[in-house]
Each structure stands twice: as structure tokens, then as C-alpha cells.
């Protein structure tokens, strides 16, 4: 199979979830318990994905040490809590610490 066709079919297999969401979501009242439950499921799934990416990464991140990734997140989260929940500042702090740790071979 050509790579173009493979990408198109993979894209359709992803779009199925988006389209399914439109069909189901159109019938879902915002104030219903089902809406709140599905919101919790969506957030839990995304939180699990991000935590999995940090603990068991695929691709290039897998070449870095778990301790560097976790140490950077601990510093970022400390700044997040101490300096009034500033997302960009916490992200930049975590990324800087992570960059310094891997640059120094940690």
C-alpha cells in the first residue's frame, strides 16, 4: 500500500472518533450527569496520556532519563504552586531544568 493511501486511511480511522463525537455530543445536554461523567473520562484519559508520555515515552524522549523528566516536572510544579498557578512560567521552568539536566548528561 502506498504511504499516501496509508496516511489517508489512518486519518479516516482517526476522524471516525471526531465524527462519532459530533453525533453523540449533539444529543447531550450540558447540565446532564452524563456530560459531567464524560468530561471526567476525557480529562482522566488526557492526564493518563501525558503522564504515560513522561514516564514511558515513545520516540526521542525515550533516550532521556526518567529522573531528568521527573525532576524537571517537580521543579515546574513547585513553581506552579508557589507563583500563583502560572502555566507558561511553570512550563518554561520545567523545560529549562530538563534541558540543563540532559545537556549535562544527567
Amino acid at each position, binding site marked *: 500500500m502506498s504511504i499516501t493511501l496509508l496516511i489517508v486511511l489512518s486519518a479516516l*480511522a482517526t476522524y471516525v*472518533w471526531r465524527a462519532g463525537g459530533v453525533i453523540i455530543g449533539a444529543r447531550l445536554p450540558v447540565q446532564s450527569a452524563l456530560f459531567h461523567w464524560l*468530561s471526567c473520562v476525557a480529562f*482522566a*484519559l488526557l*492526564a493518563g496520556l*501525558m503522564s504515560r508520555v513522561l514516564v514511558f515515552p515513545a520516540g526521542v524522549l525515550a533516550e532521556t532519563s526518567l529522573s531528568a523528566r521527573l525532576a524537571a*516536572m517537580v521543579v515546574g510544579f513547585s513553581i506552579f504552586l508557589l507563583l500563583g498557578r502560572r502555566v507558561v512560567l511553570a512550563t518554561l521552568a*520545567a523545560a529549562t531544568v530538563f534541558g540543563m539536566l540532559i545537556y549535562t548528561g544527567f
Partner: protein
Amino acid sequence: MGVPPLMVLFSMVGFGSLANSQQLDLWHTLLSAAAIYGMPGQVAMLELHATGASALAVIAGVSMANLRFLPMTVVLIPLFAVDDRWYRLRFLVVQTLSVNSWTHCREILPEMDASVRMGFFAGFATLCFLGGLIGAALGWVLASTLPAVVTLVLVFLNPAYFIFLFSCNTRPDIVCALVLGVIMGPPLYLFSSDWGLLLCGLIAGTLGFLLPRLAERN
């Protein structure tokens, strides 16, 4: 408002660089970024294709990796609150849905007038989408010149940013679901790399939904 498109751009630089290293040409890199437009699925496609997996395995792998779009779309669409004339347009705008646009619009949309919500989402998500395409192209072009540390930091930026962004939530059920999701994600992935994420969403999400309500009743 400029941060979300930039975050998509940065994370797609990592993807473009990875695609180049796996001998995918620029056109196919951009096609997969635009058509799949979901990072775990894009990475799954590259990696499964590189390992010589069958076409069916690649397609199923990409689809499973992007399954999160189902619950994300289900709880976004009701916020649009538009009449049925615009129903079909929703099938078009959801192609630009990403974790970035979803997280921000879930915060912003409820505070906006119902009539402008879908238009706002379409503009905002398209901006993120375009940022992503520029990032993928930049990553592909700069693949051999970017220092390894820069690529690694760019790839790291995305999950770190989302963890902090999610941490701004204040609804008790969402906070509970997020904490449980962070804790359960890695072990459930070890339990099943195919179904772990879905299980994590269902178990942590259901517990997150139930526990604060049970605590309130008692």
C-alpha cells in the same frame, strides 16, 4: 491567546524532525500532520510504518492512539449550542480539534454568547492547526541542524504544558479525575499498551466523577 498555537507549533517541530529522520518526505509529513492531526496517532503511524507493520495494524494503531478525540468531541459539541442549520459545519470544524484548542475552549466557551461559540472555536482551533503545520514543516527542514537538546526540550514541552494547564481546573470531580489519571496512566499502559489509556479514562474518570459526589452526600 498566542500561547496555544505556539505550543502546537513547538510540538509539531518535534514531529517534523522525527518524520525526517524516518525518511518521510515533506509532503507526506504535512499530509499526516494535517489529516491525522493528533500527535500520538501521528507518532504511532511513523513508528509502526518504520517497523514494517501491516497496513491494517498501522491504521488500527493510529486509530487507537487517537481514541481520546471521541470523549473530547462529545463534551465539546454541546458547548457550541448552535441551531441545526450549522449541524453539518460541526463535522468540518472538529478536524481542527486538538488537546490545546479543546482545553482552552472548554474554559472560554461557557462564558461567551452561545451564538458566537462555534465561530470562535473554528477561528481559534484553525490558528492552532496552522501553527501545527508550520511547526511540522520547520521541524522537517531543520531536522539535521537542530541540536538534539533543543529537539528533546521541544518534545518535552508539550506534556509538561498540559499537566500544568490541566492543574488549573478547580471543579472537584475534574481535579479528582486528573489526579487519578496521572497516577493510573503509566501502570495501566504497562498492563495493556493498546487498551491501557482507554481503561485509564474509564476507571479514573468514573472514580473522579463518583468520589466527590459520594463525599458530598456523606
